[in-house]
């Protein structure tokens, strides 16, 4: 019998090696860069289109419309589209391993389920955070430039609602406006937490179509169905759903929208998204531990 000369490995060392391996895996698949590139393109594209339309029709808008207008959120409008691409990407990262059977190779190499899931979440989270901040800051800068170019006026942040309602120029926020830079940052954080939720769903469902269906239902379909119910029932639910939390995180204050009523405070929304991601990933880890690969 040969004696084992392989040194014992502390969990921290196993984790950093697993992270390195997952980073190699994620960056050597072309679909990673296609998805992320599309997310940037869609977000920036929409953040050019929508602000220019809104600015164009500003003078003819109703007072209610003007009251709901948020100078921070409008240039971030592209984030709403980017989240769909990001969600599909998050699903593929794990479900493509299940559909190809590669998960067995992965688990044979990293049999500690918690380490594997943690490494995947870390790599996907960091990569997404970097790209998402690129998306939100670029979208914001591009979107607010479009507003300025379409006759908008930079605000100081101290204007009253009355001033906003009566202004003939569309109000434009800059990164220097109090609370704006952090809201733009939170918006990128939202995309990151969202992709971690989808990763967790992927670990639970293990199937690409199923995971994407659940994600799309969560983001688009359930809020639409709820919208058909009386507002007293639908609003409290909608305001706690990820898409509303995303809007809340991209705002400077707890503002009012027409579909979810008053949104949560931006930091409360952030905290809730963290809780969602943690719970879904924990369930994913639990199932990964118990089920046959």
């Amino acid at each position, binding site marked *: 019998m040969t004696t084992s000369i392989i040194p014992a490995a502390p969990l921290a060392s196993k984790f950093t090696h697993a992270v390195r391996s997952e980073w190699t895996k994620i960056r050597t698949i072309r679909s990673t860069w296609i998805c992320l590139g599309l997310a940037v393109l869609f977000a920036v594209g929409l953040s050019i289109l929508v602000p220019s339309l809104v600015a164009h029709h500003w003078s003819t808008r109703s007072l209610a419309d003007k009251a709901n207008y948020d100078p921070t959120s409008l240039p971030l409008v592209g984030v709403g589209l980017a989240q769909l691409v990001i969600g599909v990407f998050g699903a593929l990262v794990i479900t493509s391993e299940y559909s*190809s059977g*590669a998960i067995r190779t992965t688990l044979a190499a990293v049999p500690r389920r918690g380490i594997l899931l943690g490494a995947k979440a870390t790599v996907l989270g960091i990569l997404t955070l970097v790209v998402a901040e690129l998306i939100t800051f670029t979208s914001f800068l591009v979107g607010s430039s479009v507003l300025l170019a379409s006759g908008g006026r930079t605000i100081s942040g101290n204007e009253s609602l009355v001033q906003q309602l009566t202004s003939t120029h569309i109000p434009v926020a800059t990164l220097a406006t109090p609370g704006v830079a952090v809201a733009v940052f939170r918006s990128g954080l939202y995309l990151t937490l969202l992709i971690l939720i989808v990763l967790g769903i992927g670990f639970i469902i293990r199937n690409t179509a199923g995971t994407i269906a659940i994600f799309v239902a969560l983001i688009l379909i359930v809020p639409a169905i709820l919208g058909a119910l009386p507002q007293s029932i639908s609003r409290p639910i909608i305001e706690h759903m990820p898409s509303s939390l995303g809007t809340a995180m991209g705002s400077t204050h707890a503002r009012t929208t027409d579909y979810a009523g008053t949104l949560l405070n931006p930091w409360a929304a952030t905290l809730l998204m963290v809780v969602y991601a943690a719970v879904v990933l924990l369930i994913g880890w639990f199932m990964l531990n118990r089920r046959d690969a």
Partner: protein
Amino acid sequence: MISVTGLTKTYGETVAVDDLSFTVQPGVVTGFLGPNGSGKSTTMRMILGLDRPDDGSITVDGKAYRELAWPLREVGALLDAKALHPGRSARSHLKSLAESNAIDTKRVGEVLELVGLDSVAKRKVGKFSLGMGQRLGIAAALLGDPQILLFDEPVNGLDPEGILWVRTLLQDLAKQGKTVFVSSHLMSEMALTASNLVVIGRGKLLAETTVENFIASRTTPTVRVSARNLDALDAALRRKGASTTRESDHLLVTEMAQEAIGEIALDQAIALTELTQQSASLEEVFMQLTAGEGEYESGAVQ
């Protein structure tokens, strides 16, 4: 060494592995035989901690697979050659595996060269042929230079040159003192490659022995002999205690060794035209042993 004790696994109604116990020793190639659906792949998945046994335990070098420090450096496995992301190159695939187990990434080039895939290392594995995929799977198994190797049907899809290559590789690995456990559908292939055997049917252990004993204990040594004067030879052999069966132009003799038959013929001045030892092939022994144990037996063609 691999030790399997009381291993049981059911999928719904199907009992895939049923109270299976065996050990796989280092230094020899151990063949894992069983008809389709007898539980070979399921057993191998459980050894790697992929499927959870309902009952029983498995240790590799005394430890549970999940407890191994760096599993790929202790156990290398080829279960399903297609179990990888089709969009990744062979080199990136191996690099990610090496990184996960703190294996020097220099090994990636070495194993690619060893299996003859260095020229296609940058190509996407989804475009690989069956044989190339199999070679990549073998490269992955060898990556961590482990002491224990598992191969589930490694010659699947390989050409004759590839089959010979795998056979030599398995034997070389065993000669280096490694534990080599290999399943195969080709019983004749196992006769050439393995020295030990674990035979299962419907998830149960049927035999755990050496290839030689397996054949010897289950077949009666038979000698085929013919001569011009077959009647005289037949009578002479029977007088000396042999059992004979008369065929059209030869005798099948049992309970008497080849040399004894030759000596008797010489005594009787009978010229032999043929004297051959008939050995049952592993295939025949295997078919006898597992008769009725196959999950999917073919019916006669109507």
